[in-house]
Structure formats: C-alpha cells, structure tokens
C-alpha cells in the first residue's frame, strides 16, 4: 500500500511560539519580502500561527492554531490549475510543479485556507545570506505559486535512505522542519495508511477535527482541540 502522508497538531500542547514558522523559512528557502511588500500582503509564510480571541477583559482567552497546507484529498486548488502544476501525488500530497506554473493564481483563489503564496519578485538574498539556502529545495522565481510541501525533500531523502538500506520506512523516520523544531512536540507527521503510526493514533482522537471540515476538502491535517480545566 502506498504511503498517505498526514499530520496531527495538538493544540493542547502548542504554545504558539512560532518556532515552526522560522524553521519552515530556513528549510524551504522561503524569501523575506521586506516591510514595503509585507505591507501589501506579499509576505510569504507557508506556515503561520493563527490567533482566536474570545471574550472581553478580564475574561479573555486566546487560542493559537498553526496553519499550513492541509494537503486536502479533495483539494480545491488542483482542478482549477490549467497547467497541472498543482496536482495530487500517489502519496496524497498536493504537489506544486514550479516549472509548469504560469502564475494564473487560480489555485490561491480557490484555496479556502489561504496557504498558497505567489512570488511577486525574483527573491533576493543579499550576499552572503544565500549561503543559508538549502540545496535540497529549489529556489522559486518570479511568477510562480508556492506552498507547504510537507517538506517533500525530507520525505524523499528518508525514502531513498530506507531503500538503500533495504528496509521499510519506520514511523518517525520523517520529520518536516516544523515538526522537528517544535519543542512542545505538538506536531506529529507520518503515514495515515499505517493504523499503528502516531499520526494515525492522534487523528482518531476524540479531540480531533479538521479545519473548515464542512467544505468537504478532506484535509489530511488533524487538529486536536485544546482542553479546558480549572
């Protein structure tokens, strides 16, 4: 059976610290656009921490939710792409082929999660900031749409290693950069087709739910809601 990659995020342990946001930038060669372009809504964060305020002072609460591409099984971004740049892989990822992308931005328009980002410019890394670039991840050029890949380069690297060692991938072999950086271990990645995997176990939690589930997008990211006490 092929793998079916998914993620679970425990909002009861997520502190909203944003380590995953920066880890994602570091791993995936995501450019910083600077203050002027950020003010125009062009900042690129494949992964963001959303906040939900409830109540009024003094009975005020704040909840965080890290949101990345939900890697939907019925992804609205895929059928609208005229060039099949946005497509579904055999392992269930919503992949983006940068070389096919002609920048119609239909996919970003269709995505209900607002997790697709457009390269308005050729990215710039004043030297020697270019040395931080990850050689395993392509640098996208102007006119291309990009998004969270579940760190497909790490999935591939681990798969190749396992193949070379003539073994099956083990649960926990693959950690996307966000999962790796999380000191609260609030994010778990793995194979949803393996019922014994940690991510499968968490996805079955009674606290589990999907983001904008009613839209029928069949996301592969499960959020375990925060518990309350006191």
């Amino acid at each position: 059976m092929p793998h079916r990659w998914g993620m679970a995020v425990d909002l009861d342990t997520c502190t909203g610290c944003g380590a995953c946001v920066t880890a994602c930038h570091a791993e995936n060669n995501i450019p910083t656009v600077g203050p002027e372009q950020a003010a125009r809504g062009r900042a690129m964060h494949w992964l963001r921490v959303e906040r939900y305020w409830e109540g009024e002072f003094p009975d005020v609460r704040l909840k965080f939710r890290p949101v990345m591409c939900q890697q939907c099984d019925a992804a609205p971004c895929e059928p609208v792409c005229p060039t099949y740049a946005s497509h579904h892989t055999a392992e269930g990822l919503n992949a983006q082929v940068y070389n096919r992308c002609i920048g119609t931005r239909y996919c970003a328009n269709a995505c209900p999660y607002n997790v697709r980002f457009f390269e308005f410019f050729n990215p710039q890394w004043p030297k020697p900031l270019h040395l931080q670039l990850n050689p395993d991840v392509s640098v996208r050029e102007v006119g291309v749409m990009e998004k969270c890949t579940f760190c497909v380069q790490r999935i591939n690297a681990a798969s190749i290693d396992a193949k070379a060692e003539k073994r099956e991938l083990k649960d926990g072999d693959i950690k996307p950069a966000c999962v790796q950086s999380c000191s609260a271990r609030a994010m778990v990645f793995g194979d949803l087709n393996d019922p014994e995997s940690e991510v499968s176990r968490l996805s079955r939690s009674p606290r589990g739910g999907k983001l904008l589930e009613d839209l029928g997008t069949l996301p592969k990211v499960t959020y375990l809601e925060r518990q309350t006490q006191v």
Partner: protein
Amino acid sequence: MDRRDFIKLTAITGTSATLASCGNPEHQLIRFVPDDDVVPGVAEWKPSVCPMCAAGCGVSVRVMDADVETTRNGQAGVVKMAVAKKLEGNAKDPISQGGLCARGQASIQVTYHPDRLTQPLKRAGARGSGEFTPITWDEAIAELTAQLDTLAAAKDQKSLAFLTRPHRGRRTALAAELLKGYGAEPPIAHELFADEVLRRANGISFGHEQLPTIDLARSRFAISFGADFLGTWNSPVAQSTAYAAMRQGRPGVRGAFVQVESRMSLTGASADEWVPVTPGTEGVLALGLAHVILAGKHPADAGRAGAAIDGWSAGLPDYAPAKVAQITGVPAKTIERIARSLVEMQPSVAIAGGAALAHTNGLFHALAVNALNALLGSVERPGGVFFTPGHVKSEVRSLKSEILSSAKVLLLDDANPVFDAPKAWKVREALAAIPFIASFGSFVDDTSVHADLILPDHSFLEAWVDSAPESGSIEAVSTAAGPAMKPLYQTRAMADVLIEVAGKLKAPVALPWKTAEEVAKAVGSPQSQSPAPSPKVPAKFVEPVFDGEASQYPFHFLPYASLTFGDGSSAHLPWLQEMPDPLTSAMWSSWVEINPRTAERLQLAQGDLVDISSSQGTLRAPVMIFPGIAPDIVAMPVGQGHELFTRYASGRGVNPIAILAAATDSETGALAWAATRVKIARAGDGDGRLIMFAGEMHEHPHEHETR
C-alpha cells in the same frame, strides 16, 4: 599519499613559478583545495550552542559544501568550503532536547548577515559617525596593547572596564582572569531583562543565587506570576518541552496552570485561567494564597506548616482574601479557588518572573512566591522547583549609571546599553567621555558605533563555544563544541585576541589558557553551595512606587521582551523581522497595545498613531487593539527602534526603553522596568507603519483609500 595531498602538491608545483614573487605559494594556493571533510551534496551534522539567549540550547548544525566568495591570506576568490545550512535542536542536549525556538532557528543569519563586519576597523570620522577604515590584525592588536600599556604606565589599571552581557560562560571567565591579572575591576554585565531580583531572592530563600528549573513535566498544577516561561523567560525551549509533558505526557493526568499578569503574554494565552492583577501587587496575591492554604489546614498542621517559614505561624492574618482582593484586584473567590487547586492538585508549583519582579518592590514579590513554594513543599521535589547543580556564578558587576564614568579604556563585548538602558543612566554621555573604546562585536550597533577600534569576533558557528546553563535541567549540564565551519572572514575569536594582548603587554598577564579552545574546554569548578536557610518571609508589603503622578500619567507602561527580538539583540535578522508576532501578527513594526474599551474611549482605531509620554520623553507609535490587556495599561514590545543596527533594523520603529524612568528595586538596585507611568494622546490617522500578516490583503492599499 592520498588523492587530496596529490592534488595539493600538483597544484603547488604546477603554478608555483607564477606565484614565486608572492611569498609562500602554499598559502596562496590553499584556497583551491576543498576542505577535507566536504563531500559534495552530503550533509554532516556538527554540534554547537545557540548564542541567542542565556538558556544555552545545544544545537546540531547541518553542514554542506558551498562556493564562498571570501578573502584568504590576502587573496580574494571563491573557496569551496563546508558551511552551515540549518540549525536544529540537538536531541542529546538536556536543555533543547531536539527543539529550537524561532530565535535559535534564525541565529544562522548572524553568520551570513550581509552587514557583518569582516575585518578589524579603526575609527576614521568623528566619534559615533560610523566612519571606519580597515586595518590589519597586527595593527589592531598593537593599538589595543598600547592603550593598555599606557594605562598601566600611569598606574591607572582600575580605569580599564570590560562591558559584556551576563551569563556568557567561559569568555567572561577569561575576561575576568585578564582583568584580575592586569589589576582592574571585574567585568561589567548588562542586559535589560536580567532577572537579578529573582536570583537574589533565590539566594535569600534557598541559598541558590540562580534561576530555578521548573519541573513542569511532573507538576499537576502551576501558577506563574508574570513569568513568560513559554516565550521569553529563563529557558523557554526546555520549559516548553516540560509544559507539553505536563499537559499531555501522562495518561489520564492533564496538568493545569494559571497565569497572573496584567498583559497577556504568549504563556498567558496557553493558561487554563488568566488572572489579571494590579501591577506591583503580585506578591500580595501569593501571600493571600498562602493565607487561604494555612487557614484551610487543621490548626496543628497549619502551625507546623507555618512554623517552617519564619513568621508564618500566625497564618498571615494581614492577607485574608477580602483584603488581598482589594489590593490586587483579583476577586476573593478566585483566590480561594486557586489556593484550593494548589493544595488538591499536588505536586503544584509557583513561578515568578518578568514584569512581576520589575517593580520598586520586586524583591518582595519574588520572596513571597518563594515562600509559597516552601509552604507547598515544592522545593527540590518532583513537580516543583529545582536548582541546576554545579552552577558557577560569573564574577561580574552590574551596570549602574555611574560605573562607566570612571573608565578610560572600555572593552565592549556585545552589550548594547545605549539601546537598552534608560536615558537617565546617561550611558551615551559616559561613552563620550571615555578616551578609548574597543568593540569585539560582529556588527556596528547603537553602542559599538562609538568605538575607536573594532576587533570583530568570529560568529558562534566559526568558533569554540561553551555553555553551562544555570537552569533548564535538573542535572548539571556542561557543553563545549568546536567550530561548525571555518571563518568566512578575517575575524578572530575574542578569546584568542585577549590572550595575545595579555602576552604582549609590557607587564604580561599570565593566563591559565593559551587558545580559545582551551578556554571553552576548561570547565569551571562549581562553587560550594551553602545549606538552604529556612525561607525568609518577605518584608512587609510596601506599595510599589511608579514614576509619574497617576493624575497626569494615567496609564501603566509595560515594555515586554519580544518573542522574536528578546531585548532587541536579534532585531537585525530578517527572518525574525518578517516573522508575524503570534499574538498580533505584526511584522517589521513597533506598536502600542491598548485595551479595546480604552481605545474606544480615546477614539483610537487599529493603526492610528499615538504619542506616549512619560516624565522621560515621548514616543510615536501605531495602536494595536489588544483584548488581553487591562484598561489602564499600555504595553510595547522591546526590540525595535535601533538608531543603528544593520540595514534591517536601523531606524525601524521606536524604542520603549527610551522613555523608561530609571526606577530601581529598592532592595537589589535592579532596574524596575515596569515602574513607569505614561499618558497617551492621539497623534493622527494610521500611515501604514503598522504592518500585519493577518487581515485583509489589499494588493494596492493606496488605491483602496482613494476610491
């Protein structure tokens, strides 16, 4: 002979004729030979220590080959070398345990910053003009040596000062040795959010003058008084790991926690209950909880428990819930309920830190919380408070307003008091009066721009690093790691420079170490711990004193440590500038957090500009409507507003420290950075300087406005 040596040899013999006039040809050619440890496309992982805060997280550095434009042995060219690509937490490190915060992730940009200094510099223009000319290392070391010799010749050794940040491990130990041998006073350490009050309190209460390690992983109930322990306080990565274990790490047990503060921090957002409190009364609440706990016990038990703490045998009659409610603004029912939880949900623990201790009566609050812990039996017990063994206290002095004025030669090691000390300390004026200033920093910042000589240090990835964290682990931790990569530039480890200067003085100073490597590897000897005294009761509650009359300045002003910039020392990193602040989604900005009702009353909308004035001055910043703040408090993150700190931070936003009064804790003399009052006045409509990631995404905001 292996292949590599063969290539070296042929390269040298093949071209030595053309280079014969350029000195030693091997030195000229060495740059053509790749590093021994580089296999193209294959990553190696090397250990290092994150330098961004005193927590001292162990990291793993992903190292791969790259073409680097650099200068080696006076020749510019492209070198194939192994360079750092990414930092991750080191799973074997007891502090980071494999995790790493946003600042740690971004610290790689310190090494690759486009405005990093690449070689020694000498001041060319007027002091503070920022004009420098490149010089050689020989000239730089000769200059520094001559300055120290001149002081020594005048028998004025005491006028040498070394200004650094606290808790920098072995490099401070080396500086202290050098100063001692030379005949000067110990190093001066300065940091805005220094936790000195808590250290002093822990020394008084428990005999350990260090920050505590909170064993949250085994707690069932925690109450934090102002400590942003998941974001910026103490050892956030270790504490986040422990916090997650407290929540979901034990089957059937979910630990709970209460956060007491007046502005919701990142930590406050995760609390089960968020309890706003009148600033400067946190310790009263702790004693109120103790009162309820003592009152709820059988008289005999209460007597025994109370007697364990000096002066508590009477059960704290002055701190009955009704009275505490009046002082703190926390309802009596809430106090009773939390007190019950502290007793019923054992093990429980109390934590104090941050703004709660940054008042003129800061030590009182810290001692009160310590005594509460003692009453709960939470000291050195699973699920309670521990002190990392083997902690070596650095021999340093605190920066005070007058301490720099007697200096004639100042050595500057990354501290930036022009930015992060109150104006009333007159740091800028003191620097102007110091005849000679040398800086070891990698960047020209608000303070080091006043230097006469700059001797840039390696980045942490290029140098020997060490760490012996004072907290974050129940076991003693000591780390030393070699360079993860070769230096990119003509920089030198500060330790090596100090050692060389010490040896070249007319009266050489003998140091116990000969290289930076030896310095890093020399583990300090732990000081003997005095036995823990019985916890002292805090002196009677003294009202906090705030700068500015409430009638004229109606708001409390709360500057807080930024999640991304800390005290401002990482504002130069573009990843952190563009990282949306989790509580507001602001990027690249300064802002003033105001309660929605207060904003309504003052007719302020999100992004409108306000003038915030204290007795010390006025700042102009955009409004951030913030639901998690008391109506009579305004808060600002610290970190922006650098006059000079590279292309990414210079002139960006405003610096809240600039309007802080120089109030201090009355017992310890530590800066009371939460003791200033301000007034606010509308200054105009928003002009786009508040940049946020969330919200509408107008592609052309100006068109929308004119339509």
